[in-house]
């Protein structure tokens, strides 16, 4: 009996020892597999390597076209990638930093497989001297969806809102056929942003809607003025905003005003009417997704105004606890900040939504599309995906 017990214990010990000896080997194997799974991609156009995912972070170096980098992680929006550039530093040292994903060839990369770094901020505020700039840079590019918005969405469903319908509210940069609409007809290439596919499938049909509440020349006041409403589609005395909400019963409203507003409205009017838009949406249990607008930093007259108006937008989003896309901040890295020479229309290329060739790192309209899709994806994942099982 004793012998049997001894043998059993010995066997257990032997097994434990064997396992203990083998574990480092298993671990090494796993690491090897991780290393094999690491993704190395080429840079296709010279780009800056920075200490973090934003233009305010210090530049470490620049990488020439053809340099190879190994992907480590990405920011939430996917617009910046944390990489190692083997041997690219002085004396052949590896460089470790962040660069714009749009300057890499990412044909075989799927961002759903790239870890997200949620802890690093979108801007290095210590490098920003102006308080207004710092306040604006401090706002995350991609919003998170809070429980209050989940409740808004749920109440909206009870009231008959269409869960998969979004309303587009804004000026020419929202009314343009380049904003989301190509996605509805399949004219899009997500490139590495494969993780958007489920939310796109859910919302895409409504992207084709020609919104009554988005028109060239619109400002935050015009959307309440029945004279701007298309009388062929809207009721007597119905504002474009009410008309649009009545016609499509959306669950989400994507809102961007500012380009025209800063030219013709005073800041009190802008504040008043953006609030009124948010109030109108929330009263109908529609999630209002606010968006800051980009502006040309070289325009000495309009740029300071754009900061003030964007900060109003930020303050309203905070006060109401509604999602805000910080397009202004993300667009700082775009050529001409993503705005045309008229300092009104977003720069664009082609009529497809194309994230496969880095358009989102070059054109305002592309980056706008990307960030709105990201925000809708956040809403989808926070509210809808679980409910759909």
């Amino acid at each position, binding site marked *: 009996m004793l012998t049997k017990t001894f043998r059993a214990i010995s066997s257990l010990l032997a097994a434990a020892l064997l396992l203990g000896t083998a574990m480092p080997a298993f671990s090494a194997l796993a690491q090897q597999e991780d290393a094999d799974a690491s993704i190395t991609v080429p840079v296709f156009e010279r780009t800056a390597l920075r200490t973090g995912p934003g233009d305010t972070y210090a530049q470490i170096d620049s990488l020439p076209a053809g340099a190879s980098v190994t992907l480590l992680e990405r920011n939430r929006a996917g617009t910046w990638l944390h990489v190692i550039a083997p041997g690219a530093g002085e004396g052949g040292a590896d460089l470790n930093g962040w660069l714009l994903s749009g300057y890499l060839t990412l044909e075989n990369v799927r961002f759903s497989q790239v870890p997200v770094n949620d802890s690093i901020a979108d801007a290095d505020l210590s490098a920003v001297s102006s308080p207004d700039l710092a306040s604006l840079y401090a706002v995350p590019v991609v919003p998170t969806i809070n429980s209050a918005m989940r409740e808004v969405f749920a109440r909206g469903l009870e009231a008959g809102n269409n869960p998969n319908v979004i309303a587009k509210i804004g000026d*020419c940069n929202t*009314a343009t056929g380049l904003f989301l609409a190509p996605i509805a007809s399949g004219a899009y290439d997500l490139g590495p942003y494969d993780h958007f596919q489920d939310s796109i499938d859910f919302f895409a049909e409504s992207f084709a809607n020609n919104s009554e509440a988005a*028109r*060239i*020349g619109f*400002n935050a*006041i*015009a959307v*309440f*003025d*029945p*004279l*701007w*409403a*298309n*009388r*062929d589609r809207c009721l*007597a*005395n*119905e504002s474009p905003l009410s008309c649009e909400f009545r016609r499509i019963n959306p669950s989400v409203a994507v809102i961007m005003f500012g380009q*025209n507003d800063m*030219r*013709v*409205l005073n800041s009190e*009017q802008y504040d008043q009417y953006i609030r009124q838009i948010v109030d109108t949406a929330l009263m109908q249990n529609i999630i209002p997704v606010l968006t800051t607008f980009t502006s040309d930093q070289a325009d000495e007259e309009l740029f300071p105004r754009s900061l003030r108006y964007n900060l109003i937008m930020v303050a309203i989003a905070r006060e109401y606890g509604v999602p805000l896309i910080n397009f202004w901040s993300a667009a700082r890295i775009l050529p001409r900040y993503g705005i045309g020479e*008229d300092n*009104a*229309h977003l720069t664009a290329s082609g009529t497809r939504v194309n994230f496969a060739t880095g358009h989102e790192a070059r054109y305002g309209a592309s980056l706008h599309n990307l960030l709105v899709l990201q925000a809708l994806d956040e809403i989808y994942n926070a509210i809808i995906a679980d409910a759909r099982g």
Partner: protein
Amino acid sequence: MPSSPMRADEHLFCGICANAVQFARDVAGGENPVKVLFVLLAASLALILTGCAGEGDPAKAVESYLQAVVQSDADAMRGLTCAALEAQVQDRASSFAAVDASLDGLSCARSGADGSYTLVTCQGAIVIDYGAENSRIPLGTYRAIREDGDWKMCGEG
């Protein structure tokens, strides 16, 4: 003689013209229809020559109002807006200030009544030009009301 309520067909006339019948009777010195008609014709001719006919027409008032809107002319809009909507004039002017707007094919005509309002339906569109883009807002039906002897635009019909 007590003044009678204005009949619908009398809405065609401006403040002066509205009392034209009574005026003609007074001038003609009685009810002789030939004399009254003569005075009316003479008065009408005089009013047309002095350009008053446009101000007396709700359709013309709405047309003038729309012209003022596309020019973002708040002062002119104020003079053509009913008291109830006067507070909205500046906002509407501001909403059109950022764009180059014009009217295409504007033609308004009286189309009915809505309580104390006269309805005016307009053909044509507001055309918004903004850089290389433009868009059209089809015109619709508007309400007009007479205040202080003048026709004023007073909302959508």
